[in-house]
């Protein structure tokens, strides 16, 4: 089964006239262009790609996009509910400018819980590109502009678009900051497991024989181990005194130590089938070196598959980090990741009174779904025999 058998026969000569017909374009399109055309047809996958890109954009510029410093405490607004955006000012007149109402705290006489009601007599307009808390973009440039905020005049006014947590920190800012850690851990983890996977899977598939046998047994063994108890055990082994960046790195290594098997299998499978292809044989007869055969002839023809597999592996990594941190075995505060944020939502009673604590989970679900759809679309596009 080679790609040639299914590809349409090449026309003998270029059709007459300068008009490049659509048909002609298909014949001369590169492999990547064909894939892009196919991917484009998968509507859901395209939308998902936009969503994923949006989340990564937010993660990249989280300091700017977050309305406030995620660690800023405000003791007078604990567990404040999300403030709705309102287009009616304090006099009840309609305005074209969005704004928020102030919050009045009051204590429930029976349960002694503090509840907040919107104060309709105070209306603060929401501005874009306003001055707010100082931060360092990417730890380099000192800035104080934020995408949205109430401006410097209303510094003490509560601005919690997605509510606030136990210590009165802004949930929106925390979710935005959490995106950076949660989304990057998937990338770093997959990059690590890809290195393991390509090297071991490549060796296994290219050389075959004894080496292949050993590596396959190791993969099988790792796959028979129950992953989550194993993660838990490995994560519990991280010294509690480590600084956050070490823990972050440790967690990614743990995730990729067990995650490489899937990618290794894909790489091996592709190598095995490609090794028998005519064009590889031809290259070998032409006297190409091993390295040239692998990197010039074989890798390009399975690269798209690998990319699709990677896309499907990233959400698993994100999910694993979230699960581990949620259990208290992964990242720990003061690091902000979605899993760490969800830890606050472990107690049902707390969640029942402030359900917005579950919002980081919504972010997780959206990203996971988007990644899955995107990977699905890519896998279909990369498959030359697909429908």
């Amino acid at each position, binding site marked *: 089964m080679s790609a040639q058998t299914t590809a349409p026969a090449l026309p003998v000569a270029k059709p007459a006239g300068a008009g490049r017909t659509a048909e002609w374009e298909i014949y001369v399109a590169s492999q990547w262009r064909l894939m892009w055309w196919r991917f484009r047809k998968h509507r859901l996958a395209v939308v998902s790609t936009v969503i994923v890109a949006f989340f990564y954009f937010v993660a990249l510029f989280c300091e700017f996009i977050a309305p406030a410093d995620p660690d800023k405490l405000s003791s007078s607004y604990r567990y404040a509910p999300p403030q709705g955006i309102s287009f009616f000012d304090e006099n009840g007149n309609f305005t074209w400018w969005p704004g928020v109402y102030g919050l009045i705290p009051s204590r429930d006489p029976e349960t002694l819980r503090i509840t907040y009601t919107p104060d309709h007599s105070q209306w603060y307009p929401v501005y874009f590109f306003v001055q707010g808390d100082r931060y360092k973009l990417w730890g380099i440039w000192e800035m104080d502009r934020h995408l949205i905020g109430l401006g410097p005049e209303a510094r003490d006014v509560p601005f919690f678009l997605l509510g606030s947590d136990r210590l009165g920190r802004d949930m929106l800012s925390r979710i935005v900051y959490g995106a950076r850690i949660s989304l990057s851990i998937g990338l770093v983890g997959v990059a690590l497991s890809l290195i393991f996977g390509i090297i071991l899977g490549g060796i296994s598939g290219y050389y075959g024989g004894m080496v292949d046998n050993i590596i396959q047994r190791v993969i099988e063994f790792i796959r028979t181990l129950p992953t989550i108890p194993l993660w838990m055990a490995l994560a519990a082994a991280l*010294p509690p005194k480590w600084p956050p960046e070490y823990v972050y790195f440790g967690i990614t290594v743990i995730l990729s130590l067990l995650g490489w098997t899937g990618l290794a299998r894909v790489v091996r499978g592709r190598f095995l089938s490609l090794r028998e292809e005519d064009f590889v044989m031809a290259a070998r007869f032409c006297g190409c070196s091993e390295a040239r055969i692998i990197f010039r002839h074989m890798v390009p023809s399975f690269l798209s598959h690998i990319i699709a597999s990677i896309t499907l592996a990233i959400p698993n990594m994100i999910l694993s980090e979230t699960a581990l941190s949620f259990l208290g075995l992964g990242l720990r505060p003061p690091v902000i990741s979605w899993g760490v944020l969800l830890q606050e939502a472990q107690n049902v009673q707390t969640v029942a009174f402030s359900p917005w604590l579950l919002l980081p989970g919504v972010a997780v679900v959206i990203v996971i779904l988007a990644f899955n759809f995107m990977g699905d679309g890519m896998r279909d596009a990369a498959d030359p025999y697909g429908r």
Partner: protein
Amino acid sequence: MFQYVIRRLLLTIPTLFVTSLVAFILIQLPPGDFLTNYAAVLAQMGERISDEQLRALQEAYGLNQPVYVQYFKWISGILLRGDFGLSLEWKMPVSQLIWERMGLTLVLTTSTLLFTWLLAIPIGIYSATHQYSKLDYLFTAIGFVGLGIPGFMLALVLMWIAFAYFGQDVGGLFSEQYRNAPWSMAKVIDMLKHLWIPMIILGMEGTAGLIRTMRANLLDELNKPYVNAARARGLPEWRLILEYPVRVALNPFVSTVGWALPGLVNGGTIISVVLSLPTAGPLLLRALQSQDMYLAGAFILLLGTLTIIGTLISDLLLAWLDPRIRFE
């Protein structure tokens, strides 16, 4: 067939050995041991423990011996006497702590597996035979969402809804009065009443995946000429589908039994922690956090064994279903 079974059974022995080794290495990995942890906790409470006392404790628990001696003692105790050692935290034999929990884990996983199949196979068949119908789209959508939502998130949300809107605490497997009661018929019935929520949460992901597999497999089969031939001969449609294509489509299903069982044990660990089920997960988490090594080791070993047995069962089932496998 016989030869294959023997070979497959023999292969599990080294796997089990390596698993036990991994389990032991894992419980040795954390820096310090239970006693340093214990001393730290005591120090926090303002109590001090003398070096002599520590050494005596070390002696008593065998913590001062070389690692391989500790491993040998540990594994021989398990194999020869079924003795998993002493839980350092609970001050009682590990075997007293784990069996009930492992049993409940097994009950939960098997019932989830059955539930998953009972749901996924008919839906998969329906989806494939009624491709692009409204219900097919609905099942596809549910399937994708089911695959995307992490189980523990679903558990959290369901618990919240049950608590906030129905005033019910859905956590646990037993009602208050049965929690510490000895086993009886009433307790079993009570457990069955509680079992369905974790079962649904745990089974959701697997069900969604299996529906997709079943649908795809069956769709591949339905287009084959033999189906048309059978139809041309006037076989009733339901018999035609159930008798041939479904059987072929079920084949890859069986090969996933091996993955399904470990997958459920895996997913179950976190979901059990969220729902505070009296299964292996929460106790394992606690044991890992307090470095109660023998308890943690026993759980990891048993969960690993469960997984290996699951893979074994699926391999044997597959060999029985598909003769080609045996001769590989």
